[in-house]
């Protein structure tokens, strides 16, 4: 529809460009979407690529967004989840501690390097989680969604989301120190 709709937009402008402030949306949602992907695929260009894909898809599909059905962020995260799913269908996650260490070796400051190293260790732990759990951690701690929002996205009950996240975080906590000592 792209080409036809472009034409339609200019000549018979029936396309709904509504009151949504895209600049504000972009500023608010970019960090959340970006960190969702960081928690899914780790640091690096891939997280940026998937973030860009999400926003480009959202922009192209903006005419299909309906406020009556969902908050904008919910709609956007639905797209992000689909982008992630498409990615994982194409490629298996590839993470190794060596690679992550190399990634952190060239950091400019010790603090940044340490932060990156911590995230790299976390990424290794996340990579071992089942798909659903990893996604929920990404939504909760990467994007800052609350349990209710996650429940809506994942079609789970809010209490179920809370239970799963509690269990997963406990597991991560237990594994964290062990990995740190390696």
């Amino acid at each position, binding site marked *: 529809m792209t080409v036809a709709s472009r034409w339609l937009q200019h000549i018979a*402008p029936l396309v*709904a460009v509504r009151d949504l402030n895209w600049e504000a949306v972009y500023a608010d949602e970019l960090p959340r979407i970006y960190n969702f992907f960081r928690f899914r695929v780790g640091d690096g260009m891939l997280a940026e690529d998937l973030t860009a894909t999400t926003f480009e898809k959202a*922009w*192209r599909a903006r005419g299909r967004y309906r406020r009556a059905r969902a908050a904008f962020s919910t709609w956007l995260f639905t797209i992000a989840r689909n982008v992630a799913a498409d990615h994982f269908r194409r490629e298996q996650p590839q993470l190794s501690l060596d690679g992550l260490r190399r990634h952190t070796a060239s950091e400019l400051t010790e603090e940044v390097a340490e932060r990156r190293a911590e995230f790299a260790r976390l990424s290794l732990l996340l990579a071992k989680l089942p798909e659903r759990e990893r996604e929920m951690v990404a939504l909760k701690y990467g994007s800052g969604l609350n349990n209710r929002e996650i429940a809506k996205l994942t079609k789970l009950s809010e209490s179920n989301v809370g239970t799963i996240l509690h269990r997963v975080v406990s597991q991560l906590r237990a594994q964290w120190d062990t990995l740190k000592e390696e």
Partner: protein
Amino acid sequence: MDEFLSRLTRAPRPEFSKQLYERINQPMKTNRLQTVSHWTPAFVGVGALLLALLMFTFPPAQALAQGFLDQFRVRRFAAITVDPARMQQIANSNIDFESLFGSNVQVVKKGEAKTVANAQAASQAAGFRVFAPSSVPNGATLKETQVVGEGIVNFKADAAKLQTLLDALQIKDAKIPAKLDGATITLHRYPIVAMSYSTGRDPLNFVQSKSPEVTLPDGVDLAQLGEVALRIVGLSASEAKQFAKTIDWHTTMLVPVPANAASFREVSVHNTTGLLITMGGTGGSSFRSNDAPRQRSMLLWSEGDMVFSVEGGPVGTELVDFANSLK
């Protein structure tokens, strides 16, 4: 641990943020030229769908044989009442409209948008005489005039994807013309001039352009494809067949109007006949959370080789007055 997890978030690189914003910001700017309305997304989807199908139906070889005027150009706008349930069905179908009609899109020429000072400057930039109103609704003031440059796009029609839509809509009896598949379609859009007015209420947008042209390789059955389009928007097989015969598919742009949310009528505009569509109250979806969808109207007409639309919150008669004052 919880806090630690949250603490590991990081702001995107500023360069990445800036580049991505710029990449999607260009279409944002371009789309500000569009008039604003509260048409439902389904309506928009069907409208674009039908238009695209109409575009597919122009065989240039036939046009060459029949002369210049037979080339697909908008000479007339006609409304068709469509079933809102079908629109909802399309909206719910999760069809990827982005890739439905074609692949291998090749942008031969991309028209850029730029703001100009006035109608005279717009005429110079667009290459045609720009019409401007001598009368506007009370309180309306010209806010911005923009010109979008000429654009040419080639793409290949994909019958399989169109069949996917038919299957999703459980349309079993419609046949897509065999020669459509793989056909290269060229859309040639001439420069567009868009004037937006502040009214104190909803904005008023006036768009004018030479009619775009669509070319398609010879051999596609025009009426057959038209019937497919009509089936998609909800007509029965017999209705579609009958209706298709009454349409000059080379020059008529069909505008789907949801039966439960909008009304339309033909009006006299600038010594020709225009199509006035009014939507409001029960239909459409607004992004405003604190008000009901307001009534909006759109007037479409063609004159010579030009097409015009004026759309906004003012009532239909005000839009007609606006159009009739164009000089």
